[in-house]
């Protein structure tokens, strides 16, 4: 499987919209990570801001209706990300802990948006309430001066950030491939619909537009949903269509049938992608599930907590001095 340099370059170029904000974010984080000298906070901040703005431009679909849900989502996510960056870039560990608290708050907001009220509450209580407070205690115990030399420095900032952002890039690429723009898809399907209604070959071909481009698009869709029933149907339709189109005497009826198959499969996919929301009052249901389906896990979780408590005490218990 030879991956030639030009292949990679072309690939990256194709997805530039995805990668430019990522690159700016990478630059920002690298510059913001603590260093003993020459720490470019201002430039880091500028890059980070630019990254956010570009991400907003390229990644967000602005033609969706603006509802409170959408606004809240972007607000929570933005603040969570900013809090995350702040946590890893702060020199003072106490401030990092506070930033983490901010992250947890915003994550809980996102939980709330996704109809998980119990989780929100549990997260706030446990994370922000217990874990972070314990951490702060330990910090106060250990580093009364605030921050030490170790906090001033990072271990391999460039390489770690690069690895992280390449990983993020691959995540985003996979996500983009798996969850394409639904507008795109509905446009494609409407074209197929109009073409399927055509009677003669010429009508069909004009409705479909450029032959090569259309075929390429169908192929891409077939590949995207490959493995599913709908994907198989689309592939079938594509084969029939190509057979009919490239025969010496194109048959309109055949092509119509093929297009109808494709349309049917596409509509099913669209239907599947739009789902009902989860009802928000699901705490009782959550409780019922926990104590019926997951009873064993709950009990084990409890035992685990007990063991952890005993373990923590056992580890830190100072042995009584045996000196006379």
């Amino acid at each position, binding site marked *: *499987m030879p*991956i030639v340099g030009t*292949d*990679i370059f072309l*690939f990256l170029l194709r997805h530039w919209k995805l990668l430019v904000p990522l690159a700016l974010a990478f630059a920002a984080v690298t510059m913001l990570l603590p260093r003993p000298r020459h720490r470019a906070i201002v430039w880091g901040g500028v890059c980070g801001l630019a990254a956010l703005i570009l991400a907003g431009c390229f990644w967000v679909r602005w033609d969706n209706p603006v509802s409170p849900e959408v606004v809240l989502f972007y607000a929570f996510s933005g603040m969570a990300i900013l809090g995350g960056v702040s946590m890893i870039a702060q020199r003072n560990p106490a401030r990092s802990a506070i930033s983490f608290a901010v992250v947890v708050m915003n994550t809980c907001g996102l939980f709330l948006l996704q109809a998980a009220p119990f989780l929100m509450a549990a997260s706030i209580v446990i994370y922000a309430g217990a874990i972070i407070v314990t951490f702060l205690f330990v910090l106060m115990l250990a580093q009364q001066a605030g921050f030490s030399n170790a906090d001033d420095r990072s*271990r*391999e900032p460039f*390489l*770690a950030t690069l*690895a*992280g952002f*390449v*990983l993020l*890039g*691959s995540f985003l*690429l*996979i996500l983009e*491939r798996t969850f394409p723009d639904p507008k795109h898809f509905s446009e494609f399907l409407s074209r197929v619909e109009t073409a399927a209604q055509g009677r003669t070959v010429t009508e069909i071909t004009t409705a479909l537009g450029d032959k090569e481009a259309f075929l390429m698009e169908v192929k891409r869709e077939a590949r995207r949903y490959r493995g599913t029933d709908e994907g198989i149907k689309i592939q079938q339709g594509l084969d029939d269509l190509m057979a009919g189109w490239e025969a010496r005497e194109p048959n309109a009826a055949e092509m119509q049938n093929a297009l109808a198959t494709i349309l049917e499969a596409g509509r099913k996919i669209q239907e599947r992608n739009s789902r009902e929301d989860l009802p928000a009052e699901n705490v009782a249901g959550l409780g019922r599930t926990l104590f019926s389906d997951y009873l064993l896990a709950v009990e084990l979780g409890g035992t685990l907590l007990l063991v952890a408590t005993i373990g923590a005490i056992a580890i830190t218990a100072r042995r009584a001095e045996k000196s006379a």
Partner: protein
Amino acid sequence: MSDPDTLLWLVPGFPLAACLITAFLGPALLRRYSHWPTILGALCSLACSLLVLLSLYGSTIDHPEFHTSPHTWFTMGNFKVAFALQADALTAVMLVAVTFCGTFIAIFSTWYMRDENGYPRYFAIMSLFLFSMTGLVLANNFIALYAFWEGVGLCSYLLIGFWFQKPSAAAAARKAFLVTRLGDAGMILGIMLLWSQLGHSLDFTDIFFNARTRADSPYLTVACLLLFCGAVGKSAQFPLHVWLPDAMEGPSPVSALIHAATMVTAGVYLVARCTPLFVLAPVAQIIVACTGAFTALLAASIAVTQFDLKRVLAYSTISQLGFMFMALGAGMKDKDLAVVGASAAIFHLFTHAFFKALLFLAAGSVMLSMGHVIDMRRFSGLRKALPVTHWTFLCGALALAGVIPFSGFWSKDQIFDAVLGAGESSSPFAWLYLILFIIGLLTAAVTAFYTFRAYFRTFHGEEKIPPEAYQHGGHEVADAGHHAAPSAAVSDHAEQKFETYWAQKLPLIVLAACAALVGLVCEGFWHWLTDFLGRATSFRVEMPAHHVDYFLILVSTLSAVGGIALAAWMYYFRPGIAERIAARMPRLHDLSSRRFLFDEVYGYVVVGPLKIAALICRFFDGIVDGIVDLIGLSPRVLARILQPIQNGLVQFYALVMIVFLTAFMAIFVIWFNR
């Protein structure tokens, strides 16, 4: 006990048992008594051999033979090697010679080796040698013979290098082994050729039977010559004779047993055994005869100028072996002549065993008494100091020179008879045989000369004893100290007795008696021995009637007496004249005393290229070793390179993991999204 099977297995069995007992129990248990198993084993073996001889002699069959039932040793497809013993007249005679000499030489060794640390080792190897030698003559197929052939070679190596800490001894042992190995290479080729051409069998009887239909075939000639190669190596003929003089580094009893009486005669035995083959290959026979004659003359001419007594005797051995081969080669197509020649050779082998062993033991007696000094220039006039040695040496010398009625005379006479018969036969090479006869006569004269040169130089003249004689054991000193000062030696010189041990004197006396009488008694004018030899199964013809050639007797006696007279004149009546004569022929003398530069030539021609080849091989070996070392080094180098990854920082470890995971995922994603 008279069951031939058991008897035949016992003959090599006793020495083998003695060897095992001495080897395992000797160093720890027996120590100074380690000689008993060997002597007893040899005696029992001698008894069994005599029984075999008498049973065969008394048998009414024309060509009597004892077999044991054959056991299969191993099989490789078509190649089947059995293991059985067979004894016919030839074997019986050889067995008696071997075991008799072996017994008395073992007795002598108890005196000679008594101060040595390796006493048990010596006797163990000597027993092993007796086992191998008796097995060799008892073998009934070529491969078993070859196995025992190598066995005697091994024992020779071990015994020559007995004092292995001495570099010259170790080198001499190696030389002996390697030079005989060259011969053995030819021999095994010959054996294989015979196997492949003559019916895929290795037994003597089968091969001799199948060969009768293949007279004059070139394969047979080549096979015979290859077998003769082995004989050349083992019996120290030209060009492989260079190992025998060096083999004198071993103890004198070893030289007596192995390099005079028995091992070196194995080659003669082989050719005699294969007489049916050689008879069908006249070209091989003439080559054998020529080699023998040439070697005889060569060795005799070297022996004339040597000062080391044992070296003189070594060259004398080579020369006498040459005589034996000359007789063996005198067969030609005539089967009668072949029988005569072969039996003459074996008879000479028989008598030579006795008188040469005697001479070597006497030399050993002289050497040990003189404190390991064997250079004849450093002692003389020992006839008063070593009387028994003196008279026995004289017996042996007379036998070697071939003076009537000593045994050497009878056997040499028979050899000349055979060669002359070949010379007068109707074969195309008859003229060559006549030339060989003349060479033989000349050599006999020279033999008498150098033998008595040694005798006169050692035992006559003014008495001169080297100082080492008084520092070593081998004699009783008036005061019981081993390290008497030389100055004290002069005063108690009259009280020195060099010959006090019966173990020193008995073997000498017995062998001297044999040397004097065996020829007369066994052969004389009634030809018991050669008639008996004629009944060996190899021959299959009747021994022709013997006729007494008085002219021949006269000529050979004249040559012997002439040589003795010349030696007496130069060394007894006019001592000192030898140096003047040598000064007049400096080049010849130099060439002879430097042994015709054979060792030097071999050093350049054979050893030099082999050393270069060894250097080249070592170079390639170094390359291969270097490659292997490199392969062995690469994990270490790789480890050095990769070691810094383990720097103890947890975050670094996590980073490495993440980096590789990320890289993998990125490649995955890009590849699937092309």
